């Protein structure tokens, strides 16, 4: 995201706070803005600083999940997808199908 968005955010925030003051809907002025900003910070910190160090592992942690970089069974040559005959030969071979069959 570029810095060009910042003035837009600032304008919308000021207008939003002004309207908040006028209509008196929120329990406190800037209630929605506060939840938006602090919610983002809270969730990001919990996810990235607390959970990530404990839970993240390399991509080959489960060998079966370490699929090839490009999933060939969805990428490449189109095949006649209403023909099931080639499916039996694809069983058990990750990423070896022809194309288009799904992700």
């Amino acid at each position: 995201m570029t810095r060009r968005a910042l003035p837009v955010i600032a304008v919308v925030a000021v207008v939003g706070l002004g309207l908040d003051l006028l209509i008196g809907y929120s329990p406190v002025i800037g209630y929605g803005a506060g939840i938006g900003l602090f919610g983002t910070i809270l969730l990001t910190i919990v996810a990235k600083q607390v959970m990530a160090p404990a839970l993240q592992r390399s991509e080959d942690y489960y060998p079966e999940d370490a699929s090839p970089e490009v999933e060939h069974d969805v990428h490449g040559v189109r095949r006649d997808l209403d023909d099931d005959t080639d499916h039996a030969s694809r069983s058990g071979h990750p990423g070896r199908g022809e194309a288009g069959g799904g992700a």
Partner: protein
Amino acid sequence: MSDLLLHPAWPLLIAAVLVRVLPRRPGQLLSLIAPVLALAGGLTLTDGTLVTAPLMTFELELLRVDRLTTAFGVVFAVAALLSVIYGLATQPIGERGVALAYAGAAMGVIYAGDLLTLFLFWELKAVTSSFVVLSRRTHRSNRAGMRYLFFHIAGGKLLLGGLIVQYQTTGSLTFTAFESGVAGWLVLAAFALSAGVPPLHAWLKDAYPTASVAGTVFLSAFTTKAAVYALIRGFPGSQVLLYLGVIMATYGVLYAILENDIRRLLSYHIISQVGFMVTAVGIGTETALNGATAHAFAHILYKGLLLMGMGAVLYATGRSRASDLGGILNRMRSVAVLYMIGAVSISSVPLFSGFVSKELIPYAAGQEELAWLVIALKVVSVGTFLSTGLKLPYATFIGTRGLGPATEDGTDRVVVKPVPVSMYVAMGGAAALNIAIGLYPPLLYDLMPTEITRAPYALGPVVEKVQLLVMTVLGFWLLFAMLGSKAKINLDLDWLYRRLPVLISAHRAERTLARADTPASARTRAVTSTRTGGRAVLARVFEPPEDDTPDVVATWTLGGVLLATAALLLIVSLL
């Protein structure tokens, strides 16, 4: 009895069989007509319709119609139609057949008036949805599909146990709200498993991203939403659901912020959003149940659209990890725009469907003066926008950290294939519905179980929501570096059955041999040899060779599933 002919499940179940035997084009046409007929049936059947049939000593309620069933029936038919269109160019006949059967079974769950009919369709749904996962026929989907099957067969046994206890206790099998007791807890566990309530959720994030692109769209629509329907019917106002729902919503969104796989991220979001619905069921007021139904209805449309968008990216690029993507916006503009319609809808941006549906749930919590719940749900909403509306589309389409520069100068490392027209048609249909509901809420509200009097577009809620969304954008900008996608996987509770047994067995073998009184060199050889042998056996169970017999019939996996199922049956019988 003639009403039974209008049962929306029949066209889908019949088409599921016929598409296997008809030639290609007529089969495709039939698979499009079947959801339309189901939709027509759902709209034709009137509130209060009840069709019963005797079976031994039971009086089965094969078809029961009220406003709740109609709401779910209509959206299931629409979802089936959009999913079929989406998969027209990519889905093999076999997969399309089981997907239609799955949609029909889910429809049967919705219209079942008694627990026995519900159980039969529930089991059919479990088996057919497993085959949707298995239909991709890769090593990964086969393994995940078998785990999915085990979970859902286990859930079915819990439901069967609850059904039997309920009959013994009350002498009735009519599907109404449960009283607390053994039957209620067993059935609640079955429904919670199918809804993906933690700690019974790991099957969802495990299996959904491994299915085909069209298969995942089908899966996202039916299993968890049928469970939400069942919870609304069976456990309105259950306090435990209120707390489980909040945990679920938060859990899903935190994992979504961490996740790198584009479809697994959206799978975690299903858990999070279903958490909103489960919370609403726990609140249990009319407004809350309307909110759960409205959110389920709209969620099927916008989550389907999001998965269609990311499925299109995967189809076009062959890449499923956000860290491998980026810089493809100028070659997938239409997909990006359609995806963003889904993203702003799920994020409750005013004028889109989420704002008129999901926002009913915090509103209902506010009516009950549950301030902590309102704040918790709004914070989770922030996470929804952050991950599906900002992080994921940025990493996928724009980000420069990926391998795909945004130019067509021949230096591209990400090849972007054309996306079939049918995918665009399905995404366009879903996007149009999300916008239509957002612009004209009565389209949705008129289908809800009870009348909705709340005016969604009052100035106050709109201003508050805009503030929240804008500040989330600011937070994203401030924390941009921290939110980047990393090429990592995230451990979840599936670790307990995918990794822990291997670690325990290896550790035991090591300890046993360490205690043995053998000379050092011989002991080292023995340990090494036993470790190698033990790991080979465990690898056969947990990670069989890729060129081995197809996993669907692999004796170890299937045997494990059958053994565990038999153990569950025994427990249920003892109960």
